[in-house]
């Protein structure tokens, strides 16, 4: 059973969100352990760039593993404030530490985050 930290919020597209969720707050986004396990060894993360606008529920990048390519969705709406540049050289951090060193991008919210799932709800979604 994949790990689902209680203190985070989740999207149905298997992203996690850390931080306060109000307008103007900055959140950190990554993919869940469940998603990373399904992909296998991730070799390339193509996320949004600093300054990009992202919209909740829309594709903002892709993750490539040995076996597959998966779209990366933004779970929130706002402006990208930072990206995890370390992933360019150590994409495997997404597999090894999906909730820590494997974070992908940070967003300054332009609208409050909506429709996110609690850890329990996400856990049910993924069995």
């Amino acid at each position, binding site marked *: 059973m994949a790990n689902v930290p209680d203190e985070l919020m989740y999207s149905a597209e298997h992203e996690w969100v850390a931080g306060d969720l109000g307008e103007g707050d900055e959140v950190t986004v990554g993919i869940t352990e469940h998603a990373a396990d*399904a992909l*296998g*060894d991730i070799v*390339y993360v*193509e996320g949004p760039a600093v300054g990009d606008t992202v919209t909740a529920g829309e594709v903002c990048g892709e993750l*490539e593993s*040995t*076996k597959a*390519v998966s779209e990366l969705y933004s779970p929130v709406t706002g402006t990208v404030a930072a990206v995890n540049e370390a992933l360019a050289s150590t994409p495997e951090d997404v597999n090894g530490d999906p909730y820590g060193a494997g974070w992908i991008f940070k967003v300054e919210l332009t609208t409050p985050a909506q429709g996110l799932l609690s850890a329990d709800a996400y856990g049910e979604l993924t069995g």
Partner: protein
Amino acid sequence: MTARRTPLYDEHVALGATVVDFAGWDMPVRYTSDIAEHTAVRTSAGLFDLSHMGEISVRGSDAVPFLEYALVGRMGAVGLYRAKYTMLCAPDGGVIDDLVEYRRDWDHFVIVANASNKDVVLAELQARAQGFEVDIEDESATVALIAVQGPASEDIVTRMTARDEDNIAVLPYYAATSVVLAGDIHAFVARTGYTGEDGFELFVGADEAAEVWRLALAVGGDAITPCGLSARDTLRLEAGMPLYGQELSRDSTPFDAGLGRVIAFGTDANPRGDFVGRGALEAARDAGPTRTLVGLVGDGRRSPRPGYPVVDEGGNQVGVVTSGAPSPTLGRPIGMAYVPPQAAEPGTVVGIDVRGRREEMTVAALPLYRRG
């Protein structure tokens, strides 16, 4: 329809494998890490469950003339306890399946078919056997196939035997032998594989499969790693080996894949009679290829994938990617593709449409990896 399971399914689950559907079978795609499993085979040894593949036995006084009619290679030329890579083609020369055939006795051959094609291969062989004194039997349900592949495989398989140690070490490539493994288990062992490394494929009874699997893990210890389908695919891709459904299909001849050598037309000194597809294949040989299978290597981060278009400078499709993945050994994206013969020279730069963006890759001769 529920997926089928090999006798080793419980072993895969116990090892924490991620199970996926493959040709209607529940198979392990990985146990831990695709890259770690791949690397284990290149540096030490990997353990593979191949029991989903089909085993068809051909036995009888007409076994040789029958196979020389039914398949494109000359099975009569295969020595006792030797194996041969061959193909079953349709009358129009299209490939129905690629196969490895093992000669177990003078009039007894075992054909290993891809899991996805076993039923079609069996039906074709039965149809082509009309008029020949042969018995064709589907042994797939009673036979399990386990592979040990990698530089440490010879040592591991030797130590799995009860008293036939020497037989394994001296086995030439594409030769086979019968051995007794620890636990008094009889195995037919061939020095064949699909990884580009030294390796062995062990045919054992289905009811002894779990015991052989665990024996391999116990004997191999840290030197052996269970490997799933993901590693199997990247290993064979690096080694330039075709996969039916990608490099090979019903719509292509062996020549398209650069494998015309599997067809034996015969010589003046050693003529060969008719075989299924002969006329069409002679015509294809004489006409020359309209496309060439090449290797691809990239310097970027994004990999070509099956079906991605090969495009010219103007973005027009001129070819198609048949396989592609990030290569664990080469550390860069690799692939195989069909391109026009004039674009097949190694060093040629081609464009690949990777999900809407053009990525450049360089044509390279196959195989992209050869064991050192």
